[in-house]
């Protein structure tokens, strides 16, 4: 396998940081070798330096995309950590529906939700299934906008397709939910159109400005900031605060914390779950 030199390690991790915000410290040479080595070899690069130079010269950005796909950790599962989805069902959605219900019964209730590192889609589909279970039969009174974004093209592609193999399905999905919302598709499962049509996925780098997204009522930003430096996390959560409605809700990963990162948010507890709201 292609070996990385100390010098190349610096250059490549700086480059990865520039294009994705993902921070790899000097102990990650093995990760770079196993994940980027094969791409280097395939592109005929004799060294990581050559790979770096080639990627920077590539105006199509194809190499950059492949490097991001290779280095990002897409680990996710349906109903990960469960408590945010219980929170959604029993607290956040009922509260928001009250707050957002229009005066005229002929008008719809608008609610916008963003899964900001949606990976292969499990998080956003879990949100959509939660909404369906809660509001079954009355969905035509609502206008839900569910957006999933991620920096990885291949993750966005799989999410849009909504197809999962048995290993991905076995993680987190109760049998009943599986049978209700998925159909068998060869030896994989595909999310049903009624759920698929509730959501949209597209590519977005959280390190860049969020233009044209508008304000959201609920933002999920789970298990992505852990890959960023403290400084980048601060910037990210400040931007998220600006993209969140003043009475909106932010959900972060169960092992993450905003203490010392973003004073704009205050943590709140409901039963066993935590969510954040903007300080007023």
């Amino acid at each position, binding site marked *: 396998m292609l070996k990385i030199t100390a010098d190349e390690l610096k250059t490549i991790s700086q480059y990865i940081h520039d294009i994705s915000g993902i921070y790899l410290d000097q102990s990650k040479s093995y990760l770079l070798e196993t994940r980027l080595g094969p791409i280097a070899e395939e592109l005929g690069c004799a060294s990581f330096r050559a790979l770096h130079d080639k990627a920077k010269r590539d105006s199509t950005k194809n190499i950059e995309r492949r490097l991001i796909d290779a280095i990002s950790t897409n680990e996710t599962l349906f109903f990960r*950590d469960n408590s945010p989805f219980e929170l959604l069902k029993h607290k956040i959605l009922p509260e928001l529906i009250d707050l957002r219900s229009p005066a005229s019964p002929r008008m719809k209730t608008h609610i916008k939700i963003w899964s900001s590192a949606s990976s292969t889609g499990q998080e956003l589909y879990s949100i959509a299934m939660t909404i369906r279970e809660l509001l079954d039969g009355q969905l035509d009174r609502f206008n839900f906008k569910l957006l999933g974004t991620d920096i990885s093209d291949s993750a966005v592609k799989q999410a849009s397709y909504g197809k999962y193999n*048995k290993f991905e399905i076995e993680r987190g999905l109760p049998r009943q939910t599986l049978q209700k919302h998925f159909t068998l598709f060869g*030896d994989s499962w595909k999310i049903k159109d009624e759920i698929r049509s509730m959501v949209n996925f597209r590519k977005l780098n959280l390190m860049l400005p969020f233009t044209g997204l508008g304000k959201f009522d609920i933002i999920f930003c789970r298990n992505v900031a852990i890959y960023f430096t403290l400084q980048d996390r601060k910037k990210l959560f400040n931007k998220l605060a600006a993209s969140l409605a003043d009475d909106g809700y932010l959900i972060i990963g*169960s092992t*993450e914390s905003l*203490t010392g990162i973003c004073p704009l948010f*205050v*943590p709140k507890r409901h039963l066993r779950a*935590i969510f954040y709201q903007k300080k007023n």
Partner: protein
Amino acid sequence: MNTLTILVVDDDPVIRRLLEQRLTKENHTVLLAEDGYKAEKIIETTPIDVILTDLMMPGEIGGIEVLEIAKNKNQQIEVILITAHSSVDTAVEAMKKGAADYLEKPLNFTELFLRLQKISNMLSLLRSAEDLRQAMDVTESTAGETIQNLEITAGELQEKLDAVEAILSNDTIEAYSRITSALNIIYK
């Protein structure tokens, strides 16, 4: 090498006995069925890693049907078909239905053991991946609980700190009572 539980399905008693001997010698656990019906009963009641089945057998249940029954019961069961040279086309068809492999008669044991080795390696990889995931899930949920408690405590302390700061810097109140109020907030 991990030992496997292997179901051998063949109507020829000589082949059954031969496979039983060779596989047992390799430390595998071997179950025998002389036709598809017996195989079906065993598949329904016993956990199996691998099925070695003849493609052509008398009766309604041939190798393909054994494959289907097994995959229906548990996708994880690996099925290797044993075929006469003339039925290779059917065997290829079976691969599309999820068979792991096919071997032609007469059986080459070196080849068979190689396939089994591969399957056993894959099974142990799957098991350790599953173990790792379990471990990760447990770590994530216990760490999550701790961190969330700290987060709430830090939030409450911050609130107190803000209130103390507001009181202490309020110079419309006399100094001594500012300090008592601040202490009250801290020890509340």
